[in-house]
């Protein structure tokens, strides 16, 4: 899955996802990616978040929506993402997933659980190229 967030110079925020889902799924199964608040959520007055991982679990907790709500309360993106995964791991300690959050000013952060490692990619004003961020899970 790719989950992507874009914010322009005027503060317009959008988010999106595209995926072919989980391998060997039961035909008809849909994961979190096309579900608002699960795979992605955007609010130009706050920021946006995107999720990736075990979609059957992610979609039960709406972590992207939760991360954006956390940022609305003034929580920094990394902590907002971390908190959004906490509720999931209470119920599914062996779940694998990650959330990336960006606030409306362009501050960004991520949290992950269960993967060996997680990376996300950033291209912002002043950058010469995309930069990879490594997140320990």
């Amino acid at each position: 899955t790719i989950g992507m967030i874009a914010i322009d110079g005027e503060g317009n925020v959008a988010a999106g996802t595209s995926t072919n889902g989980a391998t060997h799924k039961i035909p008809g199964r849909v994961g979190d990616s096309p579900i608002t608040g699960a795979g992605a959520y955007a609010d130009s007055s706050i920021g946006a978040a995107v999720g990736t991982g075990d979609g059957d679990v992610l979609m039960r907790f709406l972590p992207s929506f939760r991360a954006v709500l956390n940022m609305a309360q003034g929580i920094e993106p990394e902590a907002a993402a971390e908190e959004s995964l906490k509720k999931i791991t209470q119920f599914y300690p062996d779940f694998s997933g990650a959330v990336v959050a960006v606030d409306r000013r362009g501050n960004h952060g991520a949290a992950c659980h269960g993967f060996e490692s997680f990376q996300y990619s950033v291209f912002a004003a002043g950058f010469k190229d995309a930069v990879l961020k490594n997140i320990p899970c």
Partner: protein
Amino acid sequence: SSTLPIVVNTWPFVNATRVAWRTLDKDGATVIDAIEAGCMVCEKEQCDGTVGYGGSPDENGESSLDAMIMDGTTMNVGAVGYLRRVKSAISVARQVLEKTKHTLLVGELATQFAVSMGFPEESLSTKKSKEIWKKWRDSNCQPNFWQNVVPDPKTSCGPYSRPKTFEHSDKTSLPERRDLEISRYNHD
């Protein structure tokens, strides 16, 4: 911390990031344009086998696609789920956003919508996805997502059905996910 504009995406799919950024940098381009263009890169490059055609075959060996675009200024959303035989899932999601008052279209009828919007219908299977599926079949269909069915899904392929007797468990233990092999190369 960064300054605006900014593009961020999950996983090390830097070509998608670059294209989204370049799109955003164009005169008149919107954040929706950037999201569509960036995700399209992964759909074409089949990023890690987790995006686009030819990846993550289902139990029948078919690949299907899910995608969504959300506009954080209007709170409008366009999405498709279990899209079959159409490669450009993110662009179809954009058409749902722009050409309908709905949020999410799914399955065969999402395909019909895509075709009516001019998207070509073609197989999403590749030699690689067929090999992945065959290997899984040859491994007694392990792992899979079934439970409480017969024959035992932990050792056998389907077709599965409901057992004649089934005792509802009152156990409070948490459901296992580890055995589903979700990883960098197998995820939503």
